[in-house]
């Protein structure tokens, strides 16, 4: 299937600083994509480049196979049929809710405007607040109005810039679900930008993890967590620690926690030193187990405790345990590994884990 959006090898510069470097991804029609990364990684810049606010210094962007941006040509934002929800909503304070939505419907007939506005107000469940001004609304309500305004002219694509960052956690999750349902209903292709992985997991079908102006991995949430492509993704998504180990045979790695079975990357021959990613849910508290560790920190998470355990060699690992297993700091407990996927990074590759792999492949 032809992708809805195709971003190919784009770079964006501010002065002599390159914010985005040769970044590519594509998105299928009707799916929700997410650019996830720490602040300052260039994710908002990518979004603004797609919207047409930032010129590209190289590469090109196309929507429905039509090129809308490259280094020389640049379709202005209003001609791109893209809706955008801004971080601070950017509602016009001097207009009511329906006035704000109407503003996006310029050039429509009066009657059609009315119809579309009432349809959207029903969709966001704010029919009684049509005449309210933005300052009379709560954050969640403003968010929904901003979404309705962006969707009003039936754009071919919707961009959301950290849409839930100014809301409290509870509202955030609920609204993320609501927005996802609305986007699904209207079959809109959307891109979300966020630094919050919970938000990304709740909304997106496909997630691009970004760092330093590059995409580190584009994958589903499950694979990002269980099969991270490199150290950055492993550290950024979820909790976990890397512990050193040695490759024993092509299917096994020895660590301090014992031998772990699983696939080892091709380049690692037996005897090769590697780091193994250990997630908190890979370690199970078991008093009968042979290995022991000392509790050094404890965080209460409601149904679970997150323990930081110190191994005899001084290495620290994380362990999730049901909260009725209460251990005090300094106590020695037995632990057992329970692994599904082995995630291993060769040690000497630490610095150059990303980058030229695609070019190397094309060379051979």
């Amino acid at each position: 299937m032809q992708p809805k959006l195709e971003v190919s090898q784009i770079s964006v510069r501010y002065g002599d600083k390159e914010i985005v470097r040769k970044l590519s991804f594509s998105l299928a029609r009707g799916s929700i994509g997410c650019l996830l990364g720490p602040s300052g990684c260039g994710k908002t810049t990518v979004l603004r480049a797609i919207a047409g606010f930032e010129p590209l210094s190289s590469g090109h962007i196309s929507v429905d196979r039509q090129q809308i941006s490259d280094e020389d040509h640049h379709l202005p934002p209003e001609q791109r049929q893209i809706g955008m929800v801004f971080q601070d909503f950017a509602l016009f304070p001097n207009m009511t809710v329906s006035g704000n939505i109407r503003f996006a419907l310029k050039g429509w007939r009066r009657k059609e405007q009315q119809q579309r506005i009432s349809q959207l107000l029903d969709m966001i469940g704010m029919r009684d607040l049509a005449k309210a001004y933005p300052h009379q609304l709560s954050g969640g309500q403003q968010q929904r109005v901003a979404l309705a305004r962006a969707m009003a002219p039936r754009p071919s694509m919707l961009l959301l810039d950290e849409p839930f960052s100014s809301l409290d956690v509870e509202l955030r999750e609920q609204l993320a679900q609501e927005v996802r349902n609305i986007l699904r209903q209207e079959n809109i292709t959307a891109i979300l930008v966020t630094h919050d992985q919970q938000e990304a997991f709740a909304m997106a079908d496909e997630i691009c993890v970004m760092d330093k102006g590059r995409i580190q991995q584009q994958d589903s949430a499950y694979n990002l967590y269980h099969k991270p492509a490199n150290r950055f993704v492993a550290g950024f998504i979820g909790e976990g620690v890397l512990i050193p180990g040695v490759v024993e045979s092509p299917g096994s790695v020895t660590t301090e926690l014992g031998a772990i079975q699983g696939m080892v990357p091709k380049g690692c021959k037996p005897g090769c030193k590697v780091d193994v990613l250990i997630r908190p849910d890979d370690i199970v508290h078991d008093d009968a187990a042979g290995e022991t560790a000392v509790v050094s920190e404890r965080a209460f998470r409601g149904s679970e405790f997150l323990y930081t355990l110190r191994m005899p060699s001084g290495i620290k690992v994380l362990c999730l345990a049901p909260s009725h297993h209460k251990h005090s700091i300094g106590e020695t407990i037995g632990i057992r590994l329970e692994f599904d996927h082995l995630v291993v990074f060769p040690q000497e590759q630490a610095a150059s884990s990303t980058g030229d792999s695609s070019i190397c492949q094309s060379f051979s």
Partner: protein
Amino acid sequence: MKTMDHQADVRFLQDEEGELLVVSSGSWRVAALKMVVPILERQTRNIRNQSLRWDVSRISSIDSAGIVLFKHYLDQLQAQGCKVEVVGASPAQQKLYRMVTSYISASPEIRGSPQSRLLRPFNRLGELAMAFLRDINAFLSFVGENFVVLMLLLLQPWKFRYRAIVRNIQDAGVGALPIVTLTSFLIGVVIAYQGAVQLQKFGANIFVVDMIAISVTRELAPLITAIVVAGRTGSSYTAQIGVMKITQEIDAMRIMGFEPHRFLVLPRVIAVMIALPLMIFFADIIGILGGMLVANFHLNISFTEFIHRLQNVLEVKHVWIGIAKGPFFAWLIAMSGCFRGFQVSRNTESIGRYTTISVVNAIFLVIACDALFSVLLTELGI
């Protein structure tokens, strides 16, 4: 130099199926690369969105310079949407390629050499001068953009935002009347007092009317009113547009197809250009009134005497010249206010900074423009 077949060479061929084939041959070493660079530069520029094969098997030898050149054009082709399949690379070439490319940095950081302390002020001066020129350049392109939008609107005059213009006249003009009244009245008083002291020495009391009438209408009323408007309206334009910039309302308008120049800048500029001449005329009246009061109490010139003299000495051209300055001053104030507003970046402290800059710019431009008028009008003998 070795013989020709040792020179690096590259050919762009089309095979039977229409696929593009790039064949490079010869020695790709630093001394032999001179010929291929222009060929590659010319050919790769026009290849977009194609798939091509790059045969490197006939390269007899290659060094790191050759690899860098190869990678540069490979990247360029890929950036132009081409799928490039490289064939025939020997293991040694692949090894060198991997080694060289692992050292190519995507964004090399170039640090300047350390400077002597003595040179630093000059360096700073140069930077400031460049920043100043960039600023002027940005202002000129803002003015140009605004002018284009204005011209387009003149072809479709019903698209002007008349309601916004009227509202802005209300804010910038009517709202400023109290402060304009006060300042121009005081200016009239000050001029009359200063003149009175000097003129009394010569018993030339009645000439105070000439002095007040001409100085107020021609110079002082336009200048004082413009400065009040710059401080009051110019700064508020910067702040209003700056806030809209921070809350991304301007981006929101643009993505919905509302041209910010049409919606935000032109109504403000036009409103001030209409309001300021009217306010100058108002300030003329109040200023002369102030002078008349002082002349009455201090110099014993009765109101009738004053008005009679005024009719004789105040030619109407002085009033017109003063009012005619209004639109020019207004344009400078509103344009610099709006321009600085658009420069506000995404933090609140920059609003304060740019508001200050906009007022300082506006007052400077107004006074410079006034000086220009004085010179021109004197030279023209008006």
